């Protein structure tokens, strides 16, 4: 797990799996990274496996961002993770994927 700033955005990059045993650590990293940024990015390009606990984390984070008025963006990575988001109703082009810094390979879920 890795956290850095790119302009206004705080980016948390996750390697490895996000599941029942690891999601708490990712949540902590997101909480710590939030700080004063206007955009919080979850970078899943290097992530391996993700299950419903990861999705739950994303949805929860989404709701938090809405409540505290900042953007929360997800950069999906592997096909498997994109598929997972798809199943959860986040299609390609969903706003969840828009707004990441351009260095992070697009960010529109393309």
């Amino acid at each position, binding site marked *: 797990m890795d956290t850095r700033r790119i302009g206004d955005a705080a980016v948390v990059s996750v390697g490895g799996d996000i*599941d*029942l045993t690891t999601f708490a650590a990712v949540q902590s990293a997101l909480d710590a990274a939030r700080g004063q940024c206007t955009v919080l990015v979850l970078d899943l390009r290097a992530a391996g*496996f993700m*299950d*419903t*606990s990861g*999705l*739950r984390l994303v*949805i*929860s984070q989404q*709701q938090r961002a809405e409540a505290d008025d900042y953007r929360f963006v997800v950069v999906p990575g592997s096909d498997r993770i994109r*598929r997972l988001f*798809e*199943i*959860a*109703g986040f*299609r390609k082009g969903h706003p969840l994927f828009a707004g990441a810094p351009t260095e992070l390979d697009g960010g529109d879920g393309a």
Partner: protein
Amino acid sequence: MSTAPEEDRFALLAAADEVADGTLLLANTAARLLGLVVPAFADVATLDSISPHGDLRRLGSRVDAPRAREELEAALLRRRPLPDAPVGLPRAIVSSESQLLASVTDADLHAIASSDEDFELLRALELRSALFIPLRARGRTVGALALGVGTSGRSYGEDDLRFAEVLAGRIALALDNAALSQTVTGLERRLEATLTNLAEAVLVRESGGQIVFANSAAARLLNLDSARAVIEATPQQLMDLYEVFDEDGRRLELADLPSSRAGRGEEAAPLLVRNIIRATGDERWLLHKATPVFDPDGSVSLIVSVIEDLTEVKRAELAQRVLAEAGQELSSSLDYERTLQRVAELAVPRLADWCAVAMREGDLLPLVALAHVDIGKVARVRDFEARHPVHLGDPARAAEVVRSGEALLIPEITGEVVAGGPLSEEALGLARELGLRSVIVVPLALADQPPIGALTLATAESGRRLEETDLALASELGRRAAIAVENARLYGELSEIATTLQRSLLPPDLPAMPGFRMASLYRAAGEQNEVGGDFYDVFEVPGGWMVVVGDVAGRGAEAAALTSLSRYTFRTAGKLLGDPIAALEQLNTALRESPSLSLVSVCCVRLRTGDGDAYADLVLAGHPPAYHVRRGSSRPVGVFAPFLGAYEHGGWEATTIKLDPGDQLILYTDGVIDTVGVEERFGEERLARTLSGATGAADAVRRIEHALVEFAHGSQVDDTAVIAVERTSAGPVETRAPGLDDPARVAPN
């Protein structure tokens, strides 16, 4: 006239030599020497020693006088020579030269005297001549000799001075030897005093093993009255006073001890032994250390043993080890009868020779665990117990402890205790046969609760006597055992509750749906007592049937509650509204009311018929697609949409497919496709392939089950649920009038 004839002089010298060679104490040496000199060579003599620091000390005085001899001797003994006198002892000492006063004058006396009184004393000696000789030995002035003649009529000349010097040489040696001996004895005394007062027991043996020195700590340790008693006993006699074992419980003989090994010239590493005093039954842990002392020729001359009493330390260590091992054993398994037996085996022989645990069972107190190193004896006792089961009301000690909840220590089972106690003749006989010495019985009880059993520790063969520290340890062991048993029972109950709860969350049987056939598969991933987060349900709705599969993330009580809520909310809404999307929206609203984010993924399908054809309206909510199998080929069905409980509006969509006879529709939870294999997960593609060629609902489920078993590697974390529906024949799907109190439904728990 010369003072003494030649032979007498030689005799005097020889006598002085003897004194020099002797081992008399200093005071005695001085007296002997003065006795030699007076009256043979002098009428008056004083002998002084000089310490290495130069302090003059009068060792003795001798006067041979007709009158007032004792007063004169005493006065001379007390007298201190005048340090600066031009003649006399101090001068002789300082100059290291002897002096002869051939004719003593009053002027000489005045020069020597320190006072008028002193002058009178010197006058009273009636001195005619005097000799003052420094005594030198081993390069040092060790003393001074003053000799005087007068009352005997003799006088001294140059010859006498020379003789006196020769004699002085012998006398000086005698004094020095005596002084050295004093010093050595002094050292010896100090050493002895030190050793005597050491806390550690010190023994010194000859190479044969006989003890030649023992300090009081040794006597105490060996349980003897005095160091003398230790020295007077033979080594084997001493050894016979105790039972001695090594740490592993092996009996030790005298020859095994480090001091014996050292005596034989072998390597003698420190040895920790368990030593039990036969007479009292007291047990100590002693560390024996032995060091040989060698003669110049290399043979063993002495063996020095130090014995350290480590009882406290060792006991504490053992107690902790036994408790820790017992604790581990007790928490390792729910089969408490087996763990109690293992715990009893752990306690023996380290804590006692016997360990038994009895547990309440109704009115009885049967033996659950019994241990002793000799399994023959164990069988004896078990046999006895089988023939004489203990009732809670019996006077037997274990029953007494269970009734009272109070621990019991009988340090010494004397004849009266056994006879006067509540045991039968046969029990008495058994106790005697086993040679029981000491017993502890503690209750197995949690705080403020009536005991559920009793734990007994007893000593026999080891001869050890149990005491308060053992009682504390046994009580702790009893407490932990009680906790473990209670936990096992609670766990058993919880397990039962969980199983009941789990059963309530599943439809006990798939109802018969006319026109359809169904098959299902359910596997909870967690332990037996953990309720899974997956659920499925099949119920009648207006116009058809609803089949649903759902997945609540997580495990345990919270997940179970959510699972329960989801299933029953959906069922109620479904029965009322008949429409899958409407029912989902109801569930969504219910979930959103929860204070924490409660997400549920669902795949539901309503089965209906129109014009003799069957249709399935399928909705997905945060769920992977269902599979439609027709004539051997499978394809995914459904439109992806969000989880329930996430957003106010979910935008769920229904996909309608026609089910021809033979078609199957397979619903499943993500546990299936997330199943972990050797290198990857099961995945959707593999599922699709597995289902291709399925001939019916039962076949479809069988294929999936088989494929999962083959594929799975290691433990799985997610639950698995599968429902397969197969359209069997053409014709309308019969439905009864729908009702919420349909008896085919499972009663909620």
